[in-house]
Structures are given as structure tokens and as C-alpha cells.
């Protein structure tokens, strides 16, 4: 398996890229401007595409180059474009009603990363994989997941929710590239297209929300309770 025989250079490259993706998610946590979120997400997607490509190179999985290219194209360019267009159409530039200040949400994010590391370490111990890149990959995967959820919880704008979901998906992609690079490429391709479909569905619904419900903030969606 790839994770067992990686050279030191490859290991440090993957670690660097994985941590870079994690740091970019903190950029999203630390800002309330929706445009910054989208740019950070796009950058994160490009980083993940770079991870795919370098794993394809070091692990000799040629199909990963295609995944990398598609990932950069769809996640790194098309999705951010679609979300930015949505931001412009809705005339919402920033998150107006965050529950916490950026500093507090970043602190919470840091706590989540520590928690993820603990879970990943425990899994690593049970698999006899301590000190392996897999632990780092799992940590990033779980952290991005939890940070994505945190973004969805703390923010109420519909677009922030979409972005939170995209961060979660990015985390899964990042982790799966490192721990299961041999996973059938077909599946990853379909998931990329699935993501595009779901973002378009979200886009349509957000526009309906604005025109029919008069709000795009989840705090305005209070009609259905109990």
C-alpha cells in the first residue's frame, strides 16, 4: 500500500499540502466576507488537486492525473464560479449574523483539530500505523469535516451553508486521496459530477428562497417548527 513505502520527500510534500488545505479552512473560519470564503475554497481545491497529482506521480496511479485535472477544473474553478455568481445575484457580500466572532470560531476550530487528531491517533494505534502519514491524512479529513459543520452551525447565510458542505466534501476528497489512492477512479469522477449537480440544485433553491421566502438566512426560516 502506498502509505507504507513513501520516501521522506514525498511524505513531507503530502504533509505540507494537507496542512495547507487545513490552514485554508481556517481562512474561511476567520473571515466573514463571502468572497474570501469562496477564494479560500478554490485555493483549497487546487491544493487537493495538487495532492492528487503528486500521489499519482509517487504512487504510479496514472488515473489520478485525470482526477487532479477534473478536481482543479470543477472544484477549483467551476464551483467557485457558480457560488460567486450566486453571491453577486443575491447581493449578499458578507455574513451578517454570525454567532461568534472570527477569533472565537478559530479557537473552536483549533479545538476540533485537536479532537480530530486524537481520534485519528486512536485509529492509527489500532491499525499499528502510528507515525504514519495516514494519521495526518485522517486528522485533516476529520478536521475539515468538523470545521465544515462548524461553519454551517455558526453561520446562517444559505451560501455559507453551501460552502460548509463543500469544505466537508473537500476533506473527504483530501483524505481519500492519501489513504485509498487505489479506490476506483469511476467513483471519484461520479462524485465530482454529483457535487456539481447538488450545487446547482442549491443555487436554484437559494434563488427560490429569496424570491418566495424573502430571506436567505436560516434564521429567517422559522415557519416550520414542532
Amino acid at each position, binding site marked *: *500500500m*502506498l502509505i507504507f513505502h513513501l520516501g521522506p520527500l514525498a511524505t513531507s510534500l503530502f504533509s505540507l499540502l494537507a496542512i495547507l488545505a487545513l490552514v485554508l479552512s481556517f481562512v474561511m473560519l476567520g473571515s466573514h466576507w463571502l468572497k474570501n470564503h469562496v477564494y479560500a475554497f478554490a485555493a483549497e481545491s487546487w491544493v487537493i488537486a495538487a495532492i492528487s497529482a503528486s500521489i499519482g506521480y509517487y504512487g504510479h496511479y496514472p488515473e489520478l492525473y485525470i482526477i487532479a485535472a477534473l478536481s482543479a477544473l470543477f472544484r477549483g474553478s467551476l464551483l467557485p464560479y457558480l457560488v460567486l455568481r450566486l453571491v453577486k445575484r443575491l447581493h449578499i457580500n458578507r455574513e451578517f449574523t454570525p454567532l461568534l466572532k472570527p477569533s472565537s470560531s478559530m479557537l473552536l476550530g483549533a479545538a476540533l483539530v485537536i479532537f480530530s487528531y486524537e481520534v485519528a491517533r*486512536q*485509529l492509527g494505534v*489500532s*491499525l499499528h500505523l502510528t507515525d504514519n502519514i495516514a494519521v495526518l491524512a485522517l486528522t485533516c*479529513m476529520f478536521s475539515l*469535516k468538523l470545521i*465544515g*459543520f462548524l461553519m*454551517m452551525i455558526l453561520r446562517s447565510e*444559505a451560501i455559507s*451553508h453551501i460552502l*460548509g*458542505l463543500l469544505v*466537508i*466534501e473537500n476533506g*473527504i476528497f483530501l*483524505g*481519500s486521496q492519501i*489513504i*485509498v*489512492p*487505489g*479506490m*476506483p477512479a469511476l*467513483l471519484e469522477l*461520479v*462524485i465530482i459530477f*454529483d457535487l456539481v*449537480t*447538488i450545487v446547482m*440544485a*442549491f443555487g*436554484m*433553491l*437559494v434563488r*427560490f*428562497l429569496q424570491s*418566495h*421566502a*424573502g430571506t436567505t438566512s436560516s434564521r429567517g*426560516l422559522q*415557519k*416550520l417548527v*414542532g
Partner: protein
Amino acid sequence: MVDFNALIAALWIVPSLAIIAMLAIRRPSWGEFLNLASALVVFGLTLTILVAAPNNAVVSADQYILITPLGAWVLFCVGVVYLLASIYAIGYMRLLPEERPRLHKFYALQAGFALTMLIAPLMNNPGIFWIAIDFTTIVSAFLVGFEREAECIEAAWKYLIVVSAGLALALLGIILFYWGGTFTLGPTYALTWENLRLTAPKVPEALLFFSFLLTLVGFGTKVGLAPMHTWLPDAHSEGPAPASAMLSGALLNIALLGIYRFLSIVDAGGYSLMSHTALLVLGVISLAVAGLFIVRQDGAKRMLAYSSLEHMGVLAMGFGFGGPIAFAGAMYHMINHSLTKSLMFFGAGNMMRAYESKSMSQMRRILRYYPFSGGVWLLGAVAITGAPPFGLFLSEITILRGGILSANPWAVWVMAVLLILIFTAFLNHFRRMIWGPEPEPGKEPTLKLSLWNILPMLLAFVPILVLGLWWPNGLWTFFQHAFAVAP
């Protein structure tokens, strides 16, 4: 030997052709006709697949398609509910004249929703299964938001966000399952249910259980198990009634099939007690939440949505107890629930249109104004609470019986108490609707229900009565068989 590939191809092509035709012709009457025709054909095909159902799991089409007895059963439930909902949709949508210009879109969405549900149970690759489930969410979210009122859009939005976030967890679980397999089968192997079961014994307990919990929470969100159920009452109550019936009667079963398949992987790994208990606990919480919310509910369809939550809890407990008896009970429960819940949603849709309100406090003296359809609705309510002589009584009692023999007999008592609570609360609402105050002057219902509105209720009612009085021996054998082979 039946050619399953041809049957399945037909199963997918017929609704697809119907959708294309509906969108091309753009006429409401053609939409009604094409959707009904497609539903009839689909029902026939699912029945054929069920009857010819393999004694063992059949894998075809280059490992992508899997037909198992349980899968064929879930597919049959989809066929039944799709047919009933298509008949009812004709009657119901004719009561909404303002939607008439967009009616072809509604029928296309309904057929599309059915199509996605006909794909998912047949997927041999858990990843593709996940994608199929994701597509059911996207299509049905537009069905929920079809009426374009603020509430509908809000419900559709919550549905899409909550379920997508939940399903993302399930995807992580699937990847971790795959990772567990790479330790024995090498870095690249075909992702199939069978391979995951084969490799499970070699996967460390922590990883296996962790992956299972992720898929349980993920697909549990889609099933609507509490505490991930928050989208369910909104989505089920705001969509048009035929769509609600399909969401509740067909879709939830499919997600549960996924959970059961992942459960079988953990079972194959030899760590069944913890995972079964986890499923049971979610089932118990669902029953408790459903019970408490039914007591103080006022929206007719919201109450039915919480009742779906209750029945998914019962099903989760049936599968969670494990063992042949509880399993047979759960399978029987699936079809009984699909039929009864469809009937209930149709009845609720009729009354909502008649009294022009979603609220049960406005639906007054239903038996005086609608002696026949109101009466069938009342009988359906008795059935849905699990009272004899209807099918759900038999299946619930079988699940309880199986539970006593299981490793978690405590849950049987909790389940019994909560079922009694729900029975009382549910019928109390019906008591108010039948013997409560008179309608305010000028608010008496005047709507005439057509045969299209009542026929599907009867079509659902007759089998639940028959299945309650007589559990066919062939079905029992089939369930035992389904339990013995891989799901």
C-alpha cells in the same frame, strides 16, 4: 432463468422515456396518462423481479447490479407506492387548478423521483448506492418545493442541506470501509458489498465500528432516525400529498436497506452486538421523539411525518434486534407501512383540500361530510397505530417477539410503552376530528372528491386488511430465506 438484465433495463428505461415524453409534450393530461402508464409498467416489473427473485444474491452487469431478496422486496415497495401515488396524483393535482400550467413538470419530477428510487436498491457498489441516494434527495427536494410557497421552499432547503450534510458523513464511512479492506485485498479492489463483507474479519474493531457509525448516522439522516430527523416533518408535510407518500413509503426503506447492508458487514466482521445496539438506540430515540411530537401535533401531514419517524424507529429496532423472527417482522413491516402510510397521506391530502387547511383543528366532523373517504382514513389511522386486525399489528408483534429473544430484551419494553403512547395520541386527534366541534358557519366543506382521490385509498386498504388477517406462508418462507442470504 429470468433475464434480470433485461428486466432491470426495462425498469429504468420506461420511466426515463415517460419523463422525456412528458417534458416534450407539456400537456397536463398527457402527464397524467404517461406517469400512470409508467407506474403500472414499473409495478409489473418490480413484481416480476420479486416473484422471480433469486434464491441467492445475483450479481450482473459487470458487478454493478445486485439483486437480493431484501433488495427485490424494497424495490417492490417502491413499485407499489409509485403506482398508488400516481393514481392519487391525478385526483389530487386536479384539485390545484393554479398548478395546471406546470403539471407536466410535476409528473416528470414524480417519475424522475421513482426512477432514482428504482436505481438505488440495485447497486452492488456502496459508493454508487450512495450517489443514487444523493440523487433521490436532489429530485425529491424539488418535488417538496413544487408549490413554491415560502413554507415549501423552506422545507426543501432544510431537506437538501440536512440530508446532504448527513450523507457526507456516510461517504466518509464508505471510504473508511474501503480502507479497511485494502489491508487484505491490496490497494485496489472492486468496491462491492460482498468484498467489504469478505474483508471485514481482518479489519480492526475500532476502524470497523467507526466506519459503521459514520454510515449509520449518514444514512440514518436519510431514514429520518432521531436525532437526525429534523428535515423529515418539514419535507413530508410541505410537499404535495402524492410526493409525501413516496417520500415516506418508499424512500425511507431504501436508506434503511443501506444501513442493513452496512450492518451485515460489521456482522461479518464478528462485532455484531455493539452495532446492533447502536441501531436499536437510534430506533428507541426515534420512537420517543415521534411519540412526544405526535401528542401535541396540529398539522395533519406533520403528524403523519412523525408517524413515519415512529415506523422507521420500529424498523430500525426490527433490524437492530437481529435474528430471523425480528427480521421477518421488519420486512413485513416495510410493505405494511408503505401501504398504510400511502393511504394516510392520501386521506390527509383529501381533507386538506376539502377544509382548505393543514390544521387538524379545522378538519371537523369528517365522518359527517365524508362518510366514506373519512371512514377509510379513520380505519387507516387505526391500522397505522398498530392495532389489529391490520398488517402493522402482525409485523410489530413479530418484531417484539423477535426482540425478546435478542441480546437487548430491554428495548422491547420501551418499544411497547412508546407504541401505546403513540396509539393513544394518534387516535385522540382523530377523536377530535370526528366528534369535536362543528365547523364554523360558512366553513363547511363542499368539495366533491372524485374516484381518483378515493380509489388509491381503497387499493391500499384492502391489502393491509388481508395482510393483517392472513400472513401468507410463502411470504414467511421468503423472509426466512432473505434473512439467510446476504442482503
